[in-house]
């Protein structure tokens, strides 16, 4: 770093280094584009594959001359996909179970993170360790215990106590109800909630404290400070958490599989799609239709549209604020 170049004649080195600079920069940008385009191909590949196959007629699937662009378009795979995915119903239950709890999580995790980031209360250190544990421990460890939890919902033995006192059977199984998703979301322990709390915490720690102090001095209570001062200035983190939360809830498979037995979500239907299709067609070997690709397209479309709408703000916000730093 400290080495200095030997300069003979300022004019001569200027021109030659300039030419060298231009050559190097052209070469570098060429290399950059080659690298970026090669990677983009790999990243876009599944999307292109899905898009080009979703509307392909059955004739083209066995035609070796058709690689990317189909010769005959048809709605037939799409119709099959819609039928087998049980579409209006599964979309509705995905919205009801997953998307609503994604939105709830976005709100409740923010509240918890604010408490963790701004107040030095007793026991905060232990909660910090537990927060890291919720991120570290794979969700499948607590999946079965939670299933039993919801199968006979009995928080702290209260329900059984009431049943004993009044000699009734309250039948508090929460399975197949929205509460299996909404209760964890409301209490800030939903799908990957630890991660959202962590993101929010990093953001709140970076917010200038003076604004809140001023609100406090002016007689704002803690809730009002949070709602009036902190929330309006944390649009970036809310957007990031909202997007990640919706995406991860949308892709959630195991919770839906465990807790919902009828009228399940799109993710479960999609993951069972190929076997359902084989059953439907009565074929055991390779498939002769591109209906799975149409199903993937249906499944991904809402998330993709959301990404395309929000990506500009999402990326610039992440890139400009360094939300995680």
């Amino acid at each position, binding site marked *: 770093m400290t080495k200095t170049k030997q300069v003979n004649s300022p004019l001569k080195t200027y021109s030659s280094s300039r030419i060298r600079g231009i050559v190097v920069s052209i070469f570098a940008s060429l290399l950059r584009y080659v690298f970026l385009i090669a990677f983009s191909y790999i990243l876009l590949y599944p999307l292109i594959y899905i898009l080009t196959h979703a509307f392909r007629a059955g004739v083209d699937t066995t035609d070796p001359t058709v690689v990317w662009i189909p010769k005959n378009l048809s709605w037939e795979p799409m119709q099959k996909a819609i039928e087998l995915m049980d579409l209006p119903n599964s979309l509705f239950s995905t919205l009801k179970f997953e998307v609503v709890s994604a939105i709830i999580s976005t709100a409740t995790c923010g509240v918890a993170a604010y408490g963790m980031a701004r107040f030095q209360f007793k026991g905060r250190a232990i909660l910090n360790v537990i927060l890291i544990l919720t991120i570290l421990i794979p969700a499948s460890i607590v999946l079965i215990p939670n299933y039993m939890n919801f199968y006979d919902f009995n928080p702290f033995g209260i329900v059984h106590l009431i049943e004993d006192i009044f000699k009734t059977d309250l039948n508090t199984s929460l399975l197949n109800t929205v509460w299996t998703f909404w209760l964890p979301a409301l209490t800030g322990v939903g799908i990957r909630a630890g991660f959202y709390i962590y993101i929010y915490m990093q953001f709140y720690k970076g917010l200038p404290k003076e604004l809140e102090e001023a609100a406090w001095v002016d007689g704002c209570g803690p*809730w009002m400070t949070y709602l009036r001062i902190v929330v309006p200035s944390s649009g970036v983190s809310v957007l990031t958490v909202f997007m990640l939360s919706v995406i991860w809830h949308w892709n959630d498979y195991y919770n839906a599989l465990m807790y919902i037995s009828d009228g399940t979500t799109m993710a479960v239907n999609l993951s069972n799609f190929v076997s359902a299709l084989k059953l439907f067609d009565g074929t055991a070997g*390779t498939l002769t239709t591109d209906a*799975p690709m149409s199903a993937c397209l249906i*499944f991904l479309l809402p998330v993709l549209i959301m990404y395309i709408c929000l*990506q500009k703000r999402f990326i610039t916000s992440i890139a400009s604020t360094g939300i*995680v730093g």
Partner: protein
Amino acid sequence: MAKMQFKINKSSLMQRRNNYGYLFVSHWLLGLVLFFVFPLFSSIAYAFSNLQLTNDGLQLEWVGLEHFLYIFNDDVKYMDNLRDSVTSLLTALPIIISLSMILAVILNSEFKGRTIFRSIFFLPVILANSVAMQVLSRPDMDVPLFSMSSGETMEGGGSMIDFTAILADLQLPQAISDLFEGYLANLFNLIWSCGVQTILFLAGLQSIPKQLYEVGRIEGCSRWETFWFLEIPSLRNIIQLVLIYTMIDQFTSLSSPVMSQATELMFSQQMYDRSSAMLWVYFLIVGVVMGVVLLAFNRLCVKRWE
């Protein structure tokens, strides 16, 4: 004396203020106890007992270390899977870290079409681990490029160069060419697991103050020197975060051998007791590996950069 008085008053006020923290975390505390801590302990209990599903719920019968002994002594697959999980993580880790850092540095520089490339490179955040990707990578779907990741050789039709033949021609030592072959077979997966890491690095790069670059420019740093002596040391905290994220992501992903074995046991054979024992052993080993990696990173890199 007056100063003293002021201090005491202030601290008690602060204390009262800090107690409002409980208000904000109360719902989360409830959730943690109900849906995390309590289930965690019952899953430990499952690992030490025999489970029986009856109409009244679960019947637990204490069997001590039986499941653990079974896993270590009789289960042929488990130890292999455990070894595979750890080695595949340790080989993938440097590749993922360096690849995502290179991508972030490129995406951070000024060039035409940057926004388009940025949005393409963040696609894995929404697509990776998606059910749609699982459908695409099913062996019976026969999607080119995806079938590479399952270790099969590519048959024509695809548009990839035959790297394995090139590797064979180079006549490298067997161990090295095996390592490269492993990378190439997983190239697709590796690139796909760089999404969040690239975002983290990009955010970190953006938070490096412009003045530092200015200083580097005045000192006569080349781009290469700026990268090694300015950007990487400034990113040390982000690198640590990325290390943690990548390890969690790789270890807990359902495609990791132990996780898929445990979930298979859980869902298709309903052996919750044994699968919990498996997951707990796995989790403890994961913890040790993560600790060792982070310690090594701190000792070897962060100390030197500070």
